[in-house]
């Protein structure tokens, strides 16, 4: 049969099916209009006609082949499962070190450090603005002394460590390197990631310090330092996670993340780096939200778009430069305080969509996180959820099992088109930095967040236990209680460090850093020197604040 004949046969069969369906719908109307979170209205079902002219080699190809829609490695999880990496950190370095060692004992395969807000914003624990915040949302790290405790008895050549740190990323990276050296581990043997993605801090997460252009300079300094000195380190994790948490749609998450990525690549090229020198070390971080199939399609679309951008726009040649490698975390904003055990189910589905989307590492949220920082038991359940997906349900036994589905491929294409439309708009504005300075990206996200909230309140969007299926009376839960003395101990420790170090060394290192900041010299060697002299995070960031100034938030409402 010719293609034409096949098509006519299909059309005929479809027509008669549609006539039947119309009658059914007349009798039993459908419940509502169905659409993706990214606003695509969905058809009743998808069929071969939706994929007419679908070019397999161009759109999918085999796993490990350009444009990597089906995955970045040829064997994916048949070779090795994703890295199970639970984000953890609270209180003091001692407490967090204990949680890390517990998680490693339970079969976790990588570390992920959460820092408290003063650390993330470059203030020491005894700074007035640190009041009430020390050790709260993560661990407090003031000096190399804290980092030594945090990583005690953890073999840095055997685990990889992800650090969620942005504005002061260079400082925490330097501390990590210094600890590795003390453990006697060569710097080309350490592996891990710093988030180091400042643009999304202005957009969604809020832990900025310096203005955008100065921040971009620090980031490029890290890129270029890493090429020579820590070749296996992921120098940035370009993050859509927080953009999504702030209320964006799936399309906006990918579009704004990739626009930010384009800005980093351009900044590095402008500074004279070659694209294939640094691009293989770029990594990404996405959110896994509740619309199961849309999320799977989102990850696949993101990989394809990035591969095309790197190849066509930036002329990258190294296949590793074209591969979008990403970490995923399930969506914190979907967790409910009501009936918190139900969150276990939400997390499991979100985690499965990340795995079907081909993630390289995964954090599963804990059921109690709409109430407090997670308890050890809740974190264990979250890790076990990943292990069930990885070892029990067969979801990893073949690569990209949803590939070729009429529906999945249609929405993968749709997401790609919509993302490219946004990227073009942002390009027209002059790029991501300009779009952020204009407040464009922030406003787009805000509009989506408000729409989402209205949909929940009108019950157009059901949230089990919140606007439907509520129960009265809540079950008590054992929540993690923070030790109120932690903050005091941390303040005492930083004072001790300040007294016991060689002050001359510190002053000299900080003076050198200031000179480097005022010139075009790479900051990294100077930050490393200051860190090794036990200069505090606040002192180092203070010098940079002096030279670079501070960012004033663009308030959009």
């Amino acid at each position, binding site marked *: 049969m010719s293609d034409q004949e096949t098509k006519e046969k299909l059309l005929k069969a479809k027509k008669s099916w549609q006539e039947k369906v119309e009658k059914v719908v007349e009798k039993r109307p459908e419940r509502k209009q169905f659409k993706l979170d990214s606003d695509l209205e969905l058809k009743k079902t998808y069929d071969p006609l939706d994929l007419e002219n679908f070019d397999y080699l161009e759109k999918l190809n085999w796993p490990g082949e350009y444009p990597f829609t089906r995955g970045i490695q040829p064997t994916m999880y048949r070779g090795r499962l994703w890295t199970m990496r639970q984000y953890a950190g609270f209180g003091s370095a001692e407490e967090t070190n204990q949680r890390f060692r517990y998680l490693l004992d339970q079969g976790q395969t990588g570390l992920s450090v959460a820092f408290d*807000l*003063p650390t*993330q*914003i470059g203030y020491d624990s005894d700074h007035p*603005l*640190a*009041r*009430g*915040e020390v050790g*709260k*949302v993560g661990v407090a790290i003031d000096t190399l002394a804290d980092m030594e405790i945090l990583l005690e008895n953890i073999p840095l050549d055997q685990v990889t460590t992800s650090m969620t740190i942005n504005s002061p990323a260079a400082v925490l990276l330097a501390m990590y390197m210094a600890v590795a050296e003390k453990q006697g581990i060569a710097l080309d043997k350490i592996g891990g990631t710093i988030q180091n993605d400042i643009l999304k*801090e202005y957009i*969604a*997460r*809020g*832990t900025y310090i310096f203005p955008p252009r100065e921040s971009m300079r620090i980031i490029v300094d890290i890129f270029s330092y890493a090429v020579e000195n820590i070749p296996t380190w992921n120098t940035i994790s370009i993050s859509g996670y927080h953009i999504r*948490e*702030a*209320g964006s749609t799936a399309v906006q998450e990918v579009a704004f993340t990739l626009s930010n990525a384009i800005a980093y690549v351009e900044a590095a090229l402008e500074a004279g780096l070659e694209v294939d020198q640094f691009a293989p070390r770029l990594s990404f971080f996405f959110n896994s939200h509740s619309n199961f199939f849309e999320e799977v399609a989102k990850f696949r679309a993101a990989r394809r778009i990035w591969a095309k951008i790197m190849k066509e726009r930036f002329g990258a040649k190294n296949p590793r430069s074209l591969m979008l490698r990403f970490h995923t975390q399930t969506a914190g*904003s979907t*967790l*409910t*305080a*009501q009936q918190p055990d139900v969150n276990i189910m939400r997390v499991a589905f979100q985690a499965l969509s990340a795995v079907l989307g081909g993630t390289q590492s995964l954090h599963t949220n804990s059921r109690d996180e*709409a*109430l*407090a*920082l997670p308890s050890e038991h809740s974190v264990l359940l979250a890790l076990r959820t990943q292990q069930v997906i990885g070892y029990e349900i067969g979801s990893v036994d073949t690569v990209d099992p949803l590939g070729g589905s009429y529906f999945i491929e249609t929405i993968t294409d749709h997401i790609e088109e919509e993302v490219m439309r946004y990227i073009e708009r942002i390009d027209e504005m002059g790029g991501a930095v300009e779009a952020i300075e204009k407040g464009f990206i922030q406003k787009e996200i*805000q509009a989506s*967040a*408000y729409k989402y*909230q209205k949909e*929940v*309140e009108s019950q157009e969007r059901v*949230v089990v236990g*919140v*606007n439907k299926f509520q129960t009265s009376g809540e079950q008590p839960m054992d*929540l993690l209680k*923070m030790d109120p003395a932690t903050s005091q101990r941390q303040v005492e420790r930083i004072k001790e460090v300040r007294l016991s170090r060689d002050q001359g060394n510190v002053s000299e290192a900080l003076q050198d850093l200031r000179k480097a900041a005022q010139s075009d010299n790479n900051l990294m060697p100077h930050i490393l020197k200051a860190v090794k002299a036990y200069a505090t995070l606040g002192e180092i960031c203070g010098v940079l604040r002096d030279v670079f100034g501070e960012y004033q*938030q663009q*308030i959009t*409402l």
Partner: protein
Amino acid sequence: MADKPLRVLVGKVGLDGHDRGAKVVAQALRDAGMEVIYTGLRQTPEQIVEAALQEDVQVIGLSILSGAHMQLLPPVLEMLREQDSSDIIVVVGGIIPKEDVAYLKDNGVAEVFTPGSSTEEIISFINSKVEQNQ
């Protein structure tokens, strides 16, 4: 009901950068006819009180998800008392454990809205509370 629209200060106190809730609430209050002043991120308790007095608001809505509420909210309430401005209604939104909710309400917070609260609830609470005060 008052003739003039209600004036509300929506503020982010402390270093917490999660402003989705604050912005959604601010927008909803505005759509409900209130005049909303949004402070943006990283406000100290002092700055919140100063802005509230300067803007002559009847209501302060504070959002905090970092767990620092027990250190950062009592100073706001304390300063309002010192300034003879305890008539300003303070409402709070965020991840706040139950026992802390009780403490805050005993010390001058009118209501605490935890995750899952609807903007409708918040609006009707504010309206009825303002009416009561008049």
